[in-house]
């Protein structure tokens, strides 16, 4: 069986299906009161099992293997090692032939969970790694502005020179020095161009 070499970065159709499954899983686990356990186990399943064993992942995803076999595989490998609710969920996913959406489900699960708990994920990018005091200051400030619990995802990128870029959802607040430099360059170019066009004599030198 050929392995999947290039996974599409993001598939909006899968994401749509994933959101539906994630909501269902979250609803069931919330009722059973085991949401945090299920989420942790789900993340671990993707990270520690499927990412490490791509062939097993491919087998579960493959439409050529009947779902009974997939259920047996899941039972043999995972029974007793994870919460039965999650195992049942995986079997449902296998039966519906939606195992290809598993990572999309994982992403949607996190988003839906944040929504449920009134949290918001914020991407923070800085030029150097931030110490814990700076981190908590940023989180505190964002919490007061956004009015919601903030979960920071930190990233270090020396290319922004200094300052911070903060992304909440689809909105980017860009306070990076590299962005300011670019804007400064653009404004100066435009302005100087305009001045030269309006008043050529001022810049001309007699030879």
């Amino acid at each position, binding site marked *: 069986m050929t392995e999947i070499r290039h996974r599409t970065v993001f598939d*909006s159709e899968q994401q749509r299906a994933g959101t539906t499954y994630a909501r269902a899983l979250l609803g069931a686990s919330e009722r059973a009161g085991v949401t945090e356990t299920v989420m942790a186990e789900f993340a671990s399943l993707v990270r520690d099992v499927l990412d490490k064993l791509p062939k097993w992942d491919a087998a579960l995803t493959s439409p050529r293997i009947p779902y009974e076999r997939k259920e047996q595989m899941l039972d043999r490998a995972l029974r007793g090692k994870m919460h039965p609710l999650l195992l049942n969920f995986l079997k449902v996913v296998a039966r519906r032939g939606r195992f290809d959406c598993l990572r999309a489900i994982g992403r949607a699960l996190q988003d839906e969970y944040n929504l449920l708990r009134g949290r918001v994920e914020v991407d923070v990018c800085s030029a150097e790694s931030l110490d814990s005091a700076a981190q908590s200051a940023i989180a505190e400030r964002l919490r007061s502005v956004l009015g919601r619990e903030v979960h920071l995802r930190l990233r270090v990128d020396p290319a922004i020179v200094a300052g911070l870029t903060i992304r909440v959802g689809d909105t*980017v607040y860009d306070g990076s020095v590299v962005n300011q430099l670019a804007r*400064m360059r653009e*404004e100066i170019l435009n302005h*100087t161009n305009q001045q030269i*066009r309006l008043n050529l004599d001022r*810049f*001309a030198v007699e030879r």
Partner: protein
Amino acid sequence: MKFSADEIASVIQAELEQFESQLDVREVGTVLEVGDGIARVHGLSGVMANEMVEFPTGVQGQAFNLEENSVGIIILGDYLQIEEGAEVRALGQLLSVPVGEAVIGRVLDPLGNPLDGKGPVNAKERRPVEIIAPGVAERQPVREPLQTGLKAVDAMTPIGRGQRELLIGDRKTGKTAIALDTILNQKDSGVKCFYVAVGQKDSSVAGVVKMLEDHGAMDYTTVIVAGASSPAPLQYVAPYAGTSMAEYFMWQGQHALIIYDDLSKQAVAYRQLSLLMRRPPGREAYPGDIFYAHSRLLERSVKLSEKLGGGSLTSLPLIETLEGEVSAYIPTNVISITDGQIYLQPDLFFAGIRPAMNPGISVSRVGGAAQVKAMRNVAGGLRLDLASFRELEAFAQMGTELDAATQSRLDRGYRMVELLKQPQYKPMHVVDQILSIYAGTNGYLDNVPVDQVQQWEKDFLQFVHTHKKDVWRMLDTRKNEAATLKSPDDQTTKAVRAAIEEFKRQYTRRSAD
């Protein structure tokens, strides 16, 4: 000339001192897939329909499809450098182009960027590309003529300022030639001309620009080019962009003329975009809103009311048919939108009848009211006469014996067809046209051999210009009076007759020698 570095430095310094560092807030999305001039983007949750977006390469795009999980973007520029995962930012603006006197004489792309190497466009104003056309109260009926300088068109299918007249025909039948002659004829009329080339060979466009320059027509003309190698989104946008530039002059109370060469190729570009965006295909695989794409464009050609300055925008859309098939989808659409059509036929073209206009099925629905009065008096029945002549001619070819009356109608028809021929790039003044057609319709050419008609016309007009300038001037001043050349007793009629008869005496004497 040399630039002074110190002065430039001082400008930069002033600018630096004024620079305020503000937090840059932007709405972003991520490219999911890109290709063939379109991109699908995840995110951009607050983007609005037709809003502009910018890719990291600086290329701009337009939000075209707003879907549940993604946004379809048409990319107005080079799409080959854009990668999956790239950040797209919304600009919070609609697509706009520079307008004003600065665009006149330039060759521009549909975004208003110069293509002629004559430096940046120093426009002070911009106008959005998509504008809803003026409503009923803002218009008035078409009433002033727009002279094309072509006898056949000005006599039989007159065009008024604010009219939409379709030029339709197969390839190589002279559609562009008519449009370009019309531009050349606007030299002293004050009409600003816009030539929108969509999906054409860049070599043809270069030829057109060269020709316009050689005839001094670039002084009042703008050429907007989205060539065959331009991405489909630019070809789709070009007619709207050109219209925005032309509309500026209309709203200034001036007159403008725009030529869309041609709308079939724009329709094809729009079909490509729509299919790539997975909009459902309809007839001939065109999307459902292809009619709206053309109707909203052509509705923007308007004669504004006096209160709004009375400016006008006249448009000459071109449509290329295949094998004369006017009942295909796009031709029928555009025929139904426009105020008449000039139908060009290859068999006429190859028979040497140029412009190769078929008078039987060419019409102008509103131009009659705008026609120069003297021309209307002279050429009123010409179109129907010529159409019936064609039928008679076909009948006569069967070798039947003809009575004298029919034979004389045939003879008159042959001479009129000959008289309406006109070489390319030689537009005629309306008074010259009136004189020629008066001579033809009143039988003064009946005893001139058919192959000498064109020479006769040339000599006659030269005669009038050299010896009868007073008659020419009288016609020019009185051409808009209803009585001119109407009754035989009118002063103008008498003067023109006397001039023709005097010329004929000279002509027969000369040919007898």
